[in-house]
């Protein structure tokens, strides 16, 4: 009897906490929207276009990171280097034509990241250590392959990614397509549902007959594919590349994933939430920029927001 009462009370407090979190979310969203709309020049086509391109590059990486976080493996510190490395691969193989280069770049990202996923899934190796190791290996291998020089495109065809379709930059269209594809996988395919199950309780998922190794490897492969798309877009945008191209993207990406509301412990999350997270961070940055705040303040504010969101998330999750 007392147990039931206790349960009810706990449930009640959980519900209240969830309302509190929802309230804070709404207030935060309203504040950001208010600031954005009252900022002069925010609604101009120029700033909207800048916003769209800015979110495309890091957004693809963030969508990729969502897969890793969702399966309970927190984050990969190697995705930024993977972006740079795929950009270099893409540029170097452009001589074979744009389609083969695209395929090679995608395959490269998928294989490199998928191997890490296999180690994490099969041996349950620590995902952060594996990613740090991969980061070192990628940097070393890239320095070996390029001799430390910039890589310039070996062929034509980059212009496709710089154009517009119906006024929207092709880069942004690629990003939105990535979000839609990722969300489709996560919501409507069996492997996507399995990823969430493995993330929320890997032992229970194994008991339910899910191949955790395979699921985690697929999640990492998807992350690699997303990083590769980002690498291709960046290569097209800058017309040349080195290993600095995607440096730091891992941190921005995980920030976007967490701000979007994907749980850091895994098990709950979606690509659309990450899209929201990326957009919110980008809007804050653009608004700060338009209002004359320096770039360094943007870094600080992003950091504080991530910290606050992580703390807020627990309040909402507590039962």
């Amino acid at each position, binding site marked *: 009897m007392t147990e039931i009462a206790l349960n009810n009370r706990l449930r009640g407090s959980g519900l209240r906490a969830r309302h509190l979190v929802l309230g804070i979310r709404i207030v935060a969203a309203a504040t950001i929207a208010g600031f954005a709309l009252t900022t002069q020049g925010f609604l101009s086509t120029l700033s909207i276009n800048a916003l769209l391109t800015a979110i495309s590059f890091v957004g693809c990486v963030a969508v990729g990171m969502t897969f890793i976080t969702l399966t309970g493996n927190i984050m990969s510190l190697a995705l930024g280097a993977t972006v740079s490395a795929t950009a270099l691969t893409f540029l170097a193989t452009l001589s074979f034509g744009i389609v083969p280069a695209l395929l090679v770049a995608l395959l490269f990202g998928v294989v490199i990241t998928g191997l890490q996923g296999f180690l994490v899934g099969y*041996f349950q190796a620590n995902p952060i250590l*594996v990613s740090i190791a991969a980061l070192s290996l990628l940097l070393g291998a890239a320095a070996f392959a390029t001799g430390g020089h910039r890589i310039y495109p070996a062929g034509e065809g980059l212009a496709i990614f710089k154009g517009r379709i119906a006024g929207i930059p092709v880069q942004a269209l690629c990003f939105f397509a990535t979000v839609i594809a990722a969300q489709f996988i996560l919501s409507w395919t069996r492997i996507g549902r399995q990823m969430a199950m493995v993330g929320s309780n890997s032992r229970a998922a194994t008991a339910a007959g899910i191949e955790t190794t395979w699921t985690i490897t697929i999640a990492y492969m998807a992350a690699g594919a997303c990083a590769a798309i980002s690498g291709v877009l960046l290569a097209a945008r800058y017309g040349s590349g080195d290993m600095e191209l995607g440096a730091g993207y891992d941190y921005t990406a995980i920030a976007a994933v967490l701000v979007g509301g994907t749980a850091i412990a895994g098990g709950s999350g979606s690509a659309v939430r990450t899209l929201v997270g990326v957009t919110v961070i980008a809007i804050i940055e653009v608004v700060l920029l338009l209002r004359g705040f320096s770039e360094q303040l943007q870094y600080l504010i992003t950091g504080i927001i991530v910290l606050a969101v992580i703390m807020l998330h627990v309040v909402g999750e507590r039962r």
Partner: protein
Amino acid sequence: MIQQVGRFLIAPAARPFTIMAGAVVVLGLIDRGNGYFFSLGTLFSVMQLFASLGLVALGLGLSMMVREFDLSVAGMFSLAGCIAVITGGTNPWLGALLGVAAGVVSGLIQGLIMTRLKLSSVGVTLGGLLTLQGLAYVLSGNQTVSYPNMSVALGLNAPFAQLFSVRSAVALAVFLLAALLMRYTYVGRDVIATGSDRRASRVAGLNTDRILIGVFAASGASSALAGVLLSYSLGAASPVGLSDVLAPAAAAAIVGGVSVVGGRGSPAGIAAGVLTLCILRSGLSAIGVPPYVHDLVTGGILLFIAVLDAPELARHITAWRLDRAERRAQTFTAKLS
């Protein structure tokens, strides 16, 4: 006898030193008596590298001993450097003190958030890393801040006893202090107990929350000191460029026998791990191997040990062995019939 020696060499407590000796032997063999590797110059540069990397690895390693992971060491490293260079213009002690104090405060705050809200360290220290990095950007105005007091830089790097500088001596002293604390006081036992089994330690009456907060404060202070020393000796601080310290620090701690599953490791081991990486780096460059080899070697070692430490490895090896034995038995019976 040989087996016993072998077993002693790969025992967890001795493994870091075995790996270090292995690195020295391999590099010595590659050098083949040319004298590039076994020179005082190389040893001095090993110790200089040790001073930069060692204290960050110590901080990260301490957090790994209690089964946490302090990502914020990289941010603290660059922030403390900026603080010291900006505030220590006339009085370097004040700058150093403020830098290290910032490390302690950041560790305390993050530790409190983790223990009070029962949050995972990776999430909190990720937020901490981004915030500290942001603070470093704001303080330095997003550019390299130069340190006017060049005599401090020269003094810190001036060699004595041909091997050490003040900087590397300070790093060694901190390691010694940490080793003594871990070996001869309750602190060491409590840290290892917290890392091995937190719930059991709590049941046994240990205040694990306090241990955790203390470890993160120590980790913050240690990595801050590393940042202060490096920025002083470079005569400049920059919010960027220092952040690629995380990978080598993690590699050093892991090579030094700290396990990601917690409850294992010692400051002496971490020191050996750091020395191994430093010997590899300056040894390889002394021999004339291009710098990327160092990245590849670090990554390879890290990957190898990450798999070696993985909880499922033993089970899979047993399964492989059983499989092979079964197949052999099957072919044997097939041959018989």
